[in-house]
């Protein structure tokens, strides 16, 4: 029995297919399952085609999965528009509306014979029971509950809540539509029954997306100022803070542009508040000058980039990991900014808190590289112990330090106490121009070199943060896998698949992408003869960044794909298998008896 189920559904905008996915994941979360929901839309602002993928599992899930176990097409035209996002193979159960007039042997899926094809009068059932086409999605929920044993009570409870504000007739109609779906499924059993195992109940699980998680984490970390500008796919961060941050004495400024948004955040940080901005690639391009300013003025700042396809406008609604070079290199001058990346919705919380702590502790801008997938996918999250989190505070000058205050004093650590306007004796000039220890402008080469050294030196301790790396698998494995961001969830599953085959493989996931921790990579590579750096960018940006700093074994290659081209665990596992076999072949001559 499989412990998980991957459902893909598509329809036109009004069909409520995404809403059905939301109902299902809520019900699944309530029943104690782990689940991930991703949504995909056509480029139209309203209407057009929409789809969602839902992966439900009794165990932990790391990614939205590959080939569908269940495909639901309310009409084929819309379903086919999603191509590789909704892949069907020989084990998939295909459910579609028989009203499409297409017979089960003529469904338009080229080159595939699905395990089971169910032509269901979805629209007719909806009309008969609820009196409206609009209940089609409820019929689908009934079908899924009936055939796969999914979260029946949770769905009904969710429906009651959802329709509470509408008339009782609407609720009753939907309840009948749901029952009709179940009854239909029971009357038409699948060729091979597939019923989800019950979830191991594990207390209350949270359900949210990466963007809201980042925003909530910012509040926990002590953020009191947000400045930003709407941009897909990061806007939900601003929207969440706009609802919540005021309650904590904070301010949200929707600025006139991306530059003003981050500029106001830099100002707020100068004034002593923890400050955040969030954006996506095109906005990052605009914010770059302010990030350089925050670096030289040594002001704490967190900047979240929810990456999408680029360059320029690129593909705003699809995930990509192609802003790594930009995050690391886009400021002029000799500077380093810490770059962090979460690997899941839960991790978005921890990484955002960490970003604030690093920003405050080291007085530096920190970039969080989230991505569209993590930002906008809904995911169940095990409870997080927020109470135990200790937000870091910037080092304030006190006592004698304020008698002859030197804002940029050259200390051993490179960190100098930072005052804020209003603090008596702490007056200084912050500037984008090079400055001496007092903050006075200077063009001295000697001072410039000292200050560059100070600003870089202070970040060196980050390289020893082993807690910002995940290492899994066989410690001495000859095959190594490296991945980051949302794709790391794919790599984790690939590792499990490969190890289940008996292959010796290990995985390194850096959540701190920059500065590069040479030692951690070198330790990892010590046993590695071959491997893959798996990432969603055309050039393999992480692979290239690591090579700038570390001697990477020649057998380690990038597995890099442009955004909107899903990377799935089975494909990564297959590559690992090939690498392992090749190593065996290569070693074979050494094992032959010598003549």
């Amino acid at each position, binding site marked *: 029995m499989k412990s998980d189920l991957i459902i893909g559904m598509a329809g036109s905008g009004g069909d409520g297919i995404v809403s059905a996915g939301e109902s299902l994941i809520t019900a699944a*979360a309530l029943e104690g399952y782990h689940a991930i929901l991703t949504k995909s839309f056509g480029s139209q602002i309203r209407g057009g085609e929409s789809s969602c993928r839902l992966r439900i599992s009794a165990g932990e899930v790391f990614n939205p999965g590959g080939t569908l176990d269940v495909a639901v097409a309310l009409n084929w035209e819309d379903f086919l528009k999603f191509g590789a996002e909704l892949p069907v193979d020989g084990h998939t159960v295909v459910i579609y509306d028989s009203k499409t007039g297409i017979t089960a042997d003529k469904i338009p899926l080229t080159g595939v014979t699905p395990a089971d094809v169910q032509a269901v009068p979805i629209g007719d059932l909806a009309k008969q029971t609820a009196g409206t086409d609009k209940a089609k999605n409820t019929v689908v929920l009934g079908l899924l509950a009936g055939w796969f044993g999914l979260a029946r009570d949770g769905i009904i409870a969710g429906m009651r*809540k959802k329709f509470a504000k509408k008339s009782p007739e609407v609720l009753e109609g939907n309840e009948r539509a749901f029952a009709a779906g179940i009854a239909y499924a029971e009357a038409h059993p699948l060729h091979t029954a597939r019923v989800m195992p019950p979830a191991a109940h594990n207390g209350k699980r*949270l*359900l*949210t997306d990466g963007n*809201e998680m980042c925003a*909530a984490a910012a*509040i*926990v970390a002590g953020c*009191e*100022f947000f*400045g930003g500008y709407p941009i897909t796919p990061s806007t939900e961060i601003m929207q969440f803070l706009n609802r*919540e941050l*005021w*309650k*904590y*004495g*904070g*301010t949200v*400024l929707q600025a*006139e542009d991306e*530059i*003003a948004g981050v*500029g*106001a955040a*830099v*100002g*707020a*940080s*100068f*004034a*002593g*508040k923890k400050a955040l901005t969030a954006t996506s690639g095109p906005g990052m391009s605009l914010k770059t*000058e*302010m990030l*350089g*300013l925050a670096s030289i*003025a040594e002001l704490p700042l967190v900047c979240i980039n929810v990456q999408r396809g680029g360059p320029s406008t690129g593909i705003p609604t699809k995930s990509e990991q192609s802003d790594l070079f930009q995050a690391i290199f886009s400021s002029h001058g000799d500077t380093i900014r810490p770059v962090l990346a979460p690997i899941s919705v839960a991790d978005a*919380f921890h990484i955002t808190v960490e970003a604030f702590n690093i920003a405050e502790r080291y007085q530096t801008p920190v970039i969080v590289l989230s991505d569209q997938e993590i930002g906008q996918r809904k995911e169940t999250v095990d409870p997080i112990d*927020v*109470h135990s*989190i200790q937000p870091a505070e910037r080092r304030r000058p*006190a*006592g*004698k330090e*304020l*008698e*002859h205050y030197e804002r940029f004093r050259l200390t051993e650590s490179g960190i100098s106490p930072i*005052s*804020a*306007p*209003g603090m*008596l*004796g702490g*007056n200084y*000039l*912050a*500037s*984008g121009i090079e400055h001496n220890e007092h903050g006075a*402008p200077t063009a001295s080469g000697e001072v410039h070199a000292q200050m560059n050294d100070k600003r870089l030196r202070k970040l060196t301790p980050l390289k020893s943060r082993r807690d910002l790396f995940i290492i899994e698998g066989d410690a001495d494995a000859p095959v190594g896998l490296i991945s980051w961001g949302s794709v790391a969830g794919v790599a984790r599953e690939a590792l499990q698949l490969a190890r289940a085959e008996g292959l010796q493989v290990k995985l390194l996931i850096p959540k701190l992408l920059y500065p590069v921790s040479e030692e951690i990579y070198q330790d990892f590579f010590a046993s590695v003869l071959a491997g893959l750096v798996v990432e969603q960018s055309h050039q393999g940006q992480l692979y290239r960044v690591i090579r700038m700093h570390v001697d990477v074994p020649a057998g380690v290659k990038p597995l890099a794909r442009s955004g909107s081209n899903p990377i799935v665990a089975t494909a990564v596992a297959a590559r690992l298998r090939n690498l392992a076999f090749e190593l065996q072949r290569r070693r074979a001559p050494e094992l032959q008896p010598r003549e």
Partner: protein
Amino acid sequence: MNTAAAHVADHHNVKDYQSDLKPIWCPGCGDFGVVSAIYRALAAIDRPPHEIAFVSGIGCSSRIPGYTTAYGFNSVHGRALPIAQGIKLANPELLVLVAGGDGDGFSIGGGHVPHAVRRNVDLTYIVMDNQIYGLTKGQLSPTSPRGLHTVSSSYGSLEDPVNPLLYVLSYGAGFVAQGTPADMNGLVAIIEAGIRFPGFAFINVQSPCVTFGEPEAQLKVHKATMKSLDSGGHDSTDRLHAMALAQEYGTQLYTGVFYRDPNPRPTYNDLVHERQAELGPMARPKDKILEMFVPE
């Protein structure tokens, strides 16, 4: 806090606002007059320097915060206003001054001005307008007159200048004034009035560039041609008349207050404060904030 060296004086005089840094400006630069006028205005207002944040962009005039003892922020080109707004919203108790040149404010940073005006954060924005780029040695500025020959307009400028006064008046600024170091008392008075105005205040200072500026834009000429709005009988609560007078920017140097809103709008920073106070009681304890993600 041990504050043996740092203490608040009972009363602040001009010297308390002067820093030890020697200005990089050319001898005779109008900006010397502006910084002196700022010292005098601040002394009249008598706020301790550590409660003042002074923000600028890039340009000759943007060096000005460093010549005061306030908390200064000499930021990047054109971005002083967004940074200043962030400062004021983060700590509304501060007196926040913003300064820069005509290029900083009306060319590279021009897009921020209307939004600072309509948002009405309580800032005082002083533009030192010299119709030329001085720091980069004499190129065309957004306020340079049409036809001006400079090193970047060798055959004469082909475009009309921005009218800073009309620009901010039309976006609804509550306080708009113009001055020149040729009339120091008048300049001090409008800077002080601008700071005291509750809301966004704009002060255009005709501050000559002695090195690259036109002969007719020097202090001597200002002295001879300037006209006081006050003694000319202008009613500074009459916005339409102020706009009519502002049309003469570039031909007639008016000094004084063009417009002062007799019923100032609430400031953005006050509204923010009200909202925080109103919503504060609705906050979940921070360690329970994630509970909003528990599905029902």
